[in-house]
């Protein structure tokens, strides 16, 4: 089985031993095959972001194992792991360096997979490559290579972040509600861009979203999280038949039954 991302029995607890103790991730197993595009939905506090942070290396799990391309990366530091993992954040300001130019930002992304040395970041040859990539965004950014990224709009910055996260061909792409902070039309633009890029590069992708329609439109698999657990999973065939109503129903059914079982314990 050629699984690019594998989570084995991941468990993470915050504030252990205090009254604020919270089990963020409760023995989660997940496996992504090459080319899988999995969308993750769930209510606030379900553990989606924690899951992302555990995969990217921003946090380490208390128990369990994270494997990327059969390599155990459970305790690998974030900056090392990010050679293998591309990431786009929710905040459009988070993925780019505002006081540096577009081409300098691209140069930083370009040297992600190699170790950085004293060679020039923006050479003639590399600039051609940047222009070619920027053209694929259809935002006219290829004509503004020397513009500081801080001058771009949120949508443009997020498009640039997406490009920067993907163009060095990482093993895994993590999208953390990357359209949530944008207005609807910009969000749609980024959604379409995401679909195009992932289709074209066949990247193995994990996308967290609040938007159920988006979760259904994109990707070939869907998982639903609640209280640190994966409570529902749909494979390609099942997902194609899902609608937002069915998803909500499913959510209600699982949560409802769970709540009633909780209540029965209390009674």
């Amino acid at each position, binding site marked *: 089985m050629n699984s690019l991302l594998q989570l084995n029995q991941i468990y993470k607890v915050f504030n252990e031993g205090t009254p604020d103790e919270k089990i963020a991730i409760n023995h989660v197993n997940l496996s992504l095959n090459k080319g899988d595009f999995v969308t993750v939905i769930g209510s606030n506090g379900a553990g989606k972001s924690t899951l992302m942070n555990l995969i*990217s290396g921003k946090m380490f799990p208390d128990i369990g194992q994270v494997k990327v391309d059969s390599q155990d990366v459970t305790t690998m*530091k*974030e*900056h*090392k792991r*990010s*050679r293998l993992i*591309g*990431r786009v*954040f929710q905040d459009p*300001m*988070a*993925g*780019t*360096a*505002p*006081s*540096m130019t577009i081409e*300098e*930002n691209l*140069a*930083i*992304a370009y*040297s*992600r*997979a190699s170790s*950085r*040395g*004293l*060679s*020039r*970041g*923006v050479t003639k040859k590399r600039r051609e490559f940047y222009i070619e990539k920027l053209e694929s965004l259809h935002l006219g950014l290829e004509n503004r290579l020397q513009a500081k990224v801080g001058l771009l709009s949120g949508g443009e910055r997020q498009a640039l972040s997406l490009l*920067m*996260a993907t163009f060095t061909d990482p093993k895994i792409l993590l999208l953390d509600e990357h359209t949530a902070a944008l207005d609807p039309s910009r969000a749609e633009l980024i959604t379409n861009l995401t679909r195009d890029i992932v289709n074209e590069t066949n990247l193995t992708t994990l996308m967290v979203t609040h938007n159920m329609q988006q979760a259904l439109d994109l990707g070939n698999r869907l998982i639903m999280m609640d209280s640190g657990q994966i409570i529902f999973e749909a494979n390609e065939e099942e997902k194609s038949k899902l609608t937002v109503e069915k998803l909500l129903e499913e959510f209600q059914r699982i949560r409802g039954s769970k709540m009633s079982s909780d209540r029965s314990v209390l009674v």
Partner: protein
Amino acid sequence: MFTAIFSSVEAGAIYALMALGVYLSFRILDFPDLTVDGSFVTGASVAAIMIVSGANPFIATMVALVAGFMAGCMTGLLHTKGGINPLLSGILMMIALYSINLRIMGKSNVPLLSEETVITKFSDFWTNLNIDQTIGSLFASIGLADYTPKTWGILLFMIILAFSIKGLIDAFLKTDIGLALRATGDNETMIRSFSANTDTLKVIGLGLSNALVAFAGALIAQYNGFSDVGMGIGMIIIGLASVIIGEAIFGAKNIVRATFAVIGGAIVYRIIVTLALRVEFLETGDMKLITAIIVVSALVVPKLVNQQKERQRKKKRLLESALRQNNSLEKSGEQLAAAKSDL
């Protein structure tokens, strides 16, 4: 007067190296590094003590630079590995360096007046070229003999040195490592997600910054003819003053422009201080106060100017819109009159 300004430009060019170091930490890494007060003296004392013990002054200056690099790295390690707040790790290192500097020199002051230094070596070399006489006679022939400084050599040497270091910094900040360093000061989350070790970058950046500062310290000791344990007090403020004045006067649109502004700022700062000290009631001891006032005004004045401009712009806009309204009223009046006459 002229010679006083001349020598302040000379010194300014040396202090520009220190200011470039401060620029690296303060602007590029966004790390207000107070180590500078200590590492400047470290550079001076290492160079002085080596020269006094008979070492080649060029080697002594290079060793001073390395010592500064290590001091900066220590501050970086305190911050990144020790998790100490940036300001505090700088202050701790500054205090520690005070004692270390005393240990290096063995006493609080090492005179270099009769020693062979980088400056004297270069002066000798320059004198042999006989350029000063040529320029001197040129000045004399146009009646400016009184305004001729003793030598142009030091100034030229320092300016060339400052600009070559500036060139190196510009080039470095465009390399892959340099870009990562700049991004570290700009957006740490982002650069970490692009496989850069921000801890290492900060340590390297602070090392380079303090290497430049110590290099300047070594040159100043040789220029002034002594190294003193107290010569670093307020150095960080002088560095900041240079950076801020430079940016206010010359702008900081990109790196090349910004580093140029830092050099310019360092020289302008020296000239301002020299002029201020010529004012009758001011004493040498007032220098730090003058510096503080210069920095405050360099920070506040541009803002006030902008506010004033904005206010004038608003006034103009208001006036214009009022005029437009008047015009349209008049026009409609004319139309009415025309309509009436048609009747």
